[in-house]
């Protein structure tokens, strides 16, 4: 099997602890390629939290966030929590998108912002924890007390902006945090 997951919606479970509460997260990693966009949209409907991911070494992927954001606005439920991620923070020498640009965009959308690296594991845990926190906060009133808190499963959809390169074009090791 190829090291790249085939396009589609990958589905993983993750358990993290937020403020002493164990939370089970269902992660949906949707294909980023443009031609699948009409289909991936339907997955937003069930999301409680969304990562919008661009690649700091690709100006184009950064530009594309706008499109993702408007899709999310249109299809995701009200009150969905969003975080902007600039990934590949380890590729400093190839950087095309400044940190400030990321911050700026996040500010415009009222989102939190992290620069992460799936390769060196920077800010991965932090961003997951943060998004979970946001979702918990947003759902506080609906959930009934501590019991429900810990039992409730969250659905975080992960939207990754992709580079437009055919798969396998890059050789860097695949994300290793999940």
């Amino acid at each position, binding site marked *: 099997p190829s090291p790249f997951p085939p396009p*589609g919606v990958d589905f993983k479970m993750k358990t993290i602890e937020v*403020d002493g509460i164990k939370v089970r997260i269902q992660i949906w990693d949707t294909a980023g390629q443009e031609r699948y966009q009409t289909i991936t*949209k*339907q997955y937003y409907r069930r999301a409680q939290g969304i990562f919008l991911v661009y690649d700091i070494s690709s100006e184009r992927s950064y530009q594309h966030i706008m499109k993702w954001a408007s899709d999310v606005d249109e299809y995701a439920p009200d009150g969905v929590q969003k975080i902007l991620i600039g990934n590949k923070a380890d590729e400093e020498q190839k950087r095309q998108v400044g940190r400030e640009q990321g911050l700026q965009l996040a500010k415009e959308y009222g989102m939190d912002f992290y620069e992460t690296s799936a390769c060196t594991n920077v800010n991965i845990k932090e961003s997951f924890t943060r998004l979970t926190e946001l979702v918990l906060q947003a759902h506080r009133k609906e959930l*009934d007390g501590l019991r429900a808190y810990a039992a409730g499963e969250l659905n975080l959809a992960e939207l990754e902006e992709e580079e437009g390169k055919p798969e396998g074009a890059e050789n860097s090791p695949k994300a290793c945090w999940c």
Partner: protein
Amino acid sequence: MDQSVAIQETLADGETCLIVVQGILAGEESVESRLLGLVRTHGEHALFLYTHRRMAITAEDVCLERIVPITEGFAVEEVTPDNDRYIIGSDVTVQISSEDGQLVVQLPFGSHTRMFLQEISKCLPGIVGSEDIKQNGKNLVVNHSQSTNSDDKVTLRQSKSKTDVSEMVRSSMIVSDKACSLSLQKFGLRDTIVKSQLVKREDSYTSLQNFRFFVGTYNVNGQSPKESLRPWLSHGIEPPDVYCVGFQELDLSKEAFFFNDTPKEEEWFKAVTDSLHPDARYAKVKLIRLVGMMLLLYVKADHALNISEVEAETVGTGIMGRMGNKGAVAIRFKFHNTSVCIVNSHLAAHMEEYERRNQDFKDICSRMQFCQLDPNLPPLTISKHDVVLWLGDLNYRLEELDVEKVKMLIEKKAFRALYKHDQLKRQMDEKAVFEGFSEGEITFQPTYKYDTGCDGWDTSEKCRAPAWCDRILWKGKNIFQLSYRSHMAVKISDHKPVSSMFDIKVKVVNEELYRKAFEEIVRSLDKMENASIPSVILSQREFSFRDVKYMQLQVKTFTIRNEQVPCQFEFINKLDEDTYCKEWLIANPRKGFLLPDSEMTIELELFVNKSTATRLNSGEEKLEDILILHLNEGKDYFLSVTGNYLPSCFGSPIQTLCYMREPIQDMSAESIRELTLLPLQMSDDIFRDEKPLDIPKELWMLVDHLYRNASHQEDLFQQPGLRSEFQQIRDCLDTGMLDTLLGSNHSVAEALLLFLESLPEPVICCHLYNDCLHCAGNYTLSSQVVSRLPTCHKNVFNYLMAFLRELLKNSEKNHLDANILASIFGGLLLRPPPRHPKPDVTEKRKAQQFIQQFLLRESNSP
């Protein structure tokens, strides 16, 4: 002992007792025990208070006294009682207020109480989120009042503590409370796994640290504490970290025996408390008593935080094997990460009864069971602890020596010689009792039996031989005895108190390493779980169909190879669509089930027929689709299907074809699109520079071919042609590669029928369908309807009628008759408008009748 069973028995259907705790109800003068049950009825909660027998086992042992509903205005607050003797103790005293009054209840220290309070706090109506529960480590007990002051609402109203000690111990509860909230059964099995993994990895996140334990035992022979206990408990030693102090024969009265009630408990508790080492502050962790056996556990106040999971139990082995005049009381707890069990036992008396004592020991070991926080786990027994400290009046005697001989050896301090006659030593050597336990060397004279108030041996009538009745043993790793001695200066009883100091290496948790181990375990569990999410490997996920032609099936296959988990797959519908793929595509099979490591071949069949051809010709639709292959409870895979369609006269409108002087495949995509989308012209007005053909050249070729070759053909239009020949005919029409059509007459005839069938607008336009049926049988009217057709349709109609009449002229040869032809062509030339119900027999008859009129008239020839 789980007393909720007894309470549950008293409840009605639909009422559930969630948890029970035994508490002391503080009245004006007296203190009385109550069982407090948290009961749920149809989503509402209440506290049920019961009076009860000592150990409530069935409903008969309890009596409902009062119900306190948990509604608005209900509050539980922690208070510090005025009574001095509780200063050191760490039992929790709470005040329960409700609409109909207040109660003050003292609850035992320990995990069970924590759970109980936690359960209550969950039942408070409209409980706030966890944020508030954690923010302030203290509000374990949440005050829920309707106060308008928001601060007031969620903060714990804790009365000022009198000393730091009790404060410390309380916060210890809260710390472990957090740990416990993590491990409540919300995650069920998963938690149990995490826990057992944590135990396995304990070495990786704990280190050993020395703590000093004082262990003391004293048979007080029913006396009261007349002297200070300091010589026993604190003289000449450094302040220990932990005190375990056990008594036997605290009260020999009948009241104590039958009702387990004695004022001595207070007296001795106070005496011990007052005699603890003065250089340190101690907190009482637990007091447990069964008739005359009492065990007290104290820790240095600084350690209170590190004590958790405290449980206490009793076992009676006295008369009838059950009563509490003999037996044991025990306290178990966790100190840091080391589990400790302290047992205080009073075994059967009398010289000859050593086997009975052995049996008592065994009974205590098997019957002493502590309940666990996690109800999935079996109860804990004594032997399951890292450290067991066993003290008490074990009552083993010196055998084979007469009294005088014993006293003589004692005189000479020949304790080793004497020890050889010790029953306990002999029984242990024979492995008949205390297996796995150790005892230090005895370097003190026997602690039994003295005349009370002095150091002289028993002078009573019975004149008991001296014996080492009072003993301290241990079991477990990393336990080092520092001293083992008696205290002759204490003269309250006919026994002397015994003490032992231990250095015990306790497993102390390194928080950071613990966290790491914990996270690793959780991660590996996640990993395992993710590995059990169904997942398959697709041999191919992009499918490109090249040069797709009208009515020519193309099939591509791929395999779904399942990985480790049995899975159900299905192509699922896309958002807002009620099909899983476009009309021209079929996946076969659409769903299925795969065992691990098995595979299945899926066929993707692409077939363009009349209902999809037109839009593909015009380019309004493309051969592009994405299929979602969904695994039940697993991933979704996207399959992308693309292809190019070769436009065809089949599926093209008559008018479009009339404007095409060249074969359709020589035309540019734009002009095909333009011509296909051209609105149907009703008159002869020429919109375009070029005059259209009268009829489509493709139709002419088909008809002309049949006219010239098939007028004598039998079974024309009734016998099917060959698929391959149809394909040649279609290609010939669409590419204009050949001037003449190849293939048998039947194939050409079938192609003609298919051509008519594939017309998006039938020859008799849909909107005239009903008119035609109405006037079927009236030739004049029928002709009028035909004249209302757009020119090219009218031409085609007349042309076809002329051709069919021509065929009928040869009916002797070809055996065709008007009836047959009219019924074949009626259904093709007259088609109902969309959404019109499918034509029934009457409609079909009328369509046939309509056509038949034209076949029987010689006029109107083209």
